[in-house]
């Protein structure tokens, strides 16, 4: 494999505590050497990326994406989804199991990982916690893990039954996997299509109460407490309510291994953005109140939130051009996560660049136990994003590399333009055309 040198850039590697001008040599898919500007010893013959004036950071990691394969290639394929991810600066994504069929078997997991899928970057499948994600019978986690699964979840659906959730947490802990919960008490959300509240009443839509999320998070934390097993790791997916965050915060104070992620749309948008039935503002969990949104920002700034994850959920144009109640849930997010995080968390709300990047890389790597990723220490995987942290640009959904363009962020100003995304030493994306 050819060697690659990234020269003249400013390395920001929060996990390694580096924030300085450095040149980097990538070789055989790994980070081979890091040195001060012009000081690399063994860079001869390597292809050179001129990163003058740019930031160099560990490739971003999205622990929550829907790649739609197998089964729904008209929305997205592993090839198109990972191409969009690479354009967004991501070098690894964790793929949710709500495919057709549901990824509840080692065969499906291996199929997703096969080279024929044409992934531009690393895909880490997350397997279904229960058979068919029906919440009734748990899967063989040891077999799924050896096939390549990095966590278990029934995402899209909750694991509702106490007994099954308890069994899931215990069994996953035994093989060293995290349990990711889609916290929604579906008994409270029948027929609902947005957040419950004044806006839902005004629009004549049935609402999902915040308690449907926080109630299940509280139930799960109670189960973790009762299990008394320090290996148990509960991760709350796409947290959207202040009450759920408060529960996570409290669990953490009690020393439990309970973590959470927040999606950019939940720290930027509110139910008001549904406007007049904008189906690109419809997702599950829904956009919440301004108070909930502010609680997301607050929890990100004060460190309660462990990761930013997009919940990238592509849907075909025709599926979203329907009555609001009939539209599927979800929006795309891979190409806008970095730009929105830098524009708002970093520029507007003054979060240090290193901390923003950590939420998008080192921390999700740690949550999913992805060894050698989320850092650029020598010996790590050569997963790198090179970007201009100051560059402002406008997102145009029509130019997306995804098969779908169901985003509420079309036309939004982004900050931080990706120049190169390098996955295990190969250039997966370059804006140099």
């Amino acid at each position: 494999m050819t060697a690659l040198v990234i020269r003249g850039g400013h390395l920001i590697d929060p996990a390694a505590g580096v924030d300085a001008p450095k040149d980097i040599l990538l070789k055989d898919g790994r980070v081979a050497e890091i040195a001060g500007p012009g000081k690399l010893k063994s860079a001869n013959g390597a292809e050179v990326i001129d990163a003058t004036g740019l930031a160099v950071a560990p490739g971003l990691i999205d622990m929550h994406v829907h790649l739609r394969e197998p089964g729904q290639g008209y929305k997205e394929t592993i090839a198109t989804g990972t191409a969009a991810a690479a354009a967004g600066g991501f070098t690894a994504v964790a793929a949710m199991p709500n495919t057709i069929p549901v990824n509840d078997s080692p065969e499906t997991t291996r199929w997703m990982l096969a080279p024929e899928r044409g992934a531009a970057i690393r895909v880490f499948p997350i397997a279904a916690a229960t058979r068919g994600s029906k919440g009734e019978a748990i899967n063989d986690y040891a077999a799924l893990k050896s096939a390549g699964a990095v966590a278990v979840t029934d995402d899209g659906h909750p694991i509702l039954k106490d007994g099954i959730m308890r069994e899931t947490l215990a069994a996953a802990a035994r093989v060293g996997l995290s349990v990711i919960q889609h916290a929604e008490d579906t008994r409270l959300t029948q027929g609902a299509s947005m957040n419950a509240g004044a806006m839902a009443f005004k629009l004549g839509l049935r609402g999902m109460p915040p308690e449907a999320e926080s109630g299940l998070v509280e139930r799960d934390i109670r189960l973790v407490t009762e299990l008394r097993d320090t290996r148990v790791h509960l991760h709350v997916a796409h947290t959207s309510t202040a009450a759920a965050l408060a529960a996570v915060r409290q669990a953490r104070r009690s020393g439990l291994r309970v973590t959470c992620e927040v999606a950019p749309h939940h720290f930027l948008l509110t139910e008001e953005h549904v406007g007049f039935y904008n189906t690109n503002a419809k997702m599950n969990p829904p956009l919440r109140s301004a108070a909930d949104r502010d609680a997301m920002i607050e929890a990100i700034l004060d460190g309660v939130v462990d990761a930013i994850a997009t919940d990238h959920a592509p849907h075909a144009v025709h599926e979203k051009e329907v009555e609001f109640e009939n539209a599927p849930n979800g929006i795309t997010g891979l190409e806008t996560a970095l730009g929105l995080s830098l524009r708002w968390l970093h520029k507007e709300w003054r979060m240090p660049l290193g901390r923003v990047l950590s939420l998008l890389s080192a921390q999700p790597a740690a949550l999913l136990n992805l060894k050698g990723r989320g850092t650029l220490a020598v010996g790590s995987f050569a997963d790198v994003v090179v970007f201009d942290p100051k560059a402002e640009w406008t997102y145009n959904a029509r130019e997306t590399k995804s098969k779908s363009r169901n985003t509420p962020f079309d036309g939004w100003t982004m900050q931080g333009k990706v120049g190169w995304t390098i996955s295990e030493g190969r250039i997966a994306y370059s804006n140099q055309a």
Partner: protein
Amino acid sequence: MNAAVTSIRRQLHPPPVPASPFPYHPGSLLSASDLSLEGISHILNRATILENADPLVRDRILAKRRVALLFYESSTRTRTSFELAAKGLGADTTLISSLSSSIEKGESLKDTGLTLRALGAEAIILRHNSSGAAWLLEAETRLPVLNAGDGMHEHPTQALLDLRTILAHLDPATKACHPERVRRGGRVEGPAAGKASPAYIDEIAADTLAGFTITIVGDIQHSRVARSNMTLLPRLGARVLLCGPKELLPDIAASAGPGITIERDFNEALRQSQAVMMLRIQAERLAGLQLDLAQYKENYQLTGPRLAAHAPTALVMHPGPIIRGLEVTAGVADGAQSAILEQVKNGVAIRMAVVERALTASQDGGRA
């Protein structure tokens, strides 16, 4: 930690909510909130003029223009009055209902709308079971769309005809309603004949209904009529009382806008009201909700004795269809205080004005 966060939070300037592009077409009427006060006055004025105009003259206003009525739900009053209104102005109308069209075969609302546009429809009147359907149809076709009821959301022409009914009985000085002063049809022609017409107030302002209270009773949660009236009437200064059990009237309804209050005691609400609007229990939208009907009737049925005891001069309204013996007794529905059929009649006049506006709207269309 928290102190630091608090200091940061004071600086939060989250992304703004973008302005709504709706309505795209100045002739559209999607929500009661689309209309400015001038726009409302204009519609009320035109309703009176068109109602009184010679049918043979009126017939030429929209001669051979094409109006499609697209109905995904059954309807008697709204459909017939829109159809009569469009035809009364000379337009050609065609009715597409979900049970006798390609909608049954799975054609989407977007494709149905585009098909109607390709067939030459210049405006579409839409009744749909999903909230927001009219916005989707307008965005996809860019034709003037008249919302004839979308799910649980709005029914703006109903609110306009309700307003016209109220204004016909309103004493501008005392804000009292006079149910006995019912306008008795009769064509009136020419300016001089205007005096024969009872006191319709067609010029409205932000205080036209100041001091006037109306109670809307029953299934508010599922009612598009309630939502449109709650949007429209307070803008003219009216106080709107909402009355009903929690299952059908969540507390959040009070925050829907200014001038709206919840009063769960029906008798108490009646005592404060110059008009009362009864709503039907919408069995088709209850979604599994169990309701004790005997209990409901006990608390919220409008009976003769209740009306006589608490609101002996109030105007009794109902958007229809009425279920006699449930929300109102037959005696009240047919009684001297009832304006129910007058509301129906006003529907034709209002819808003539709204259809005319759809096809002749100037650039601003009286938009709010």
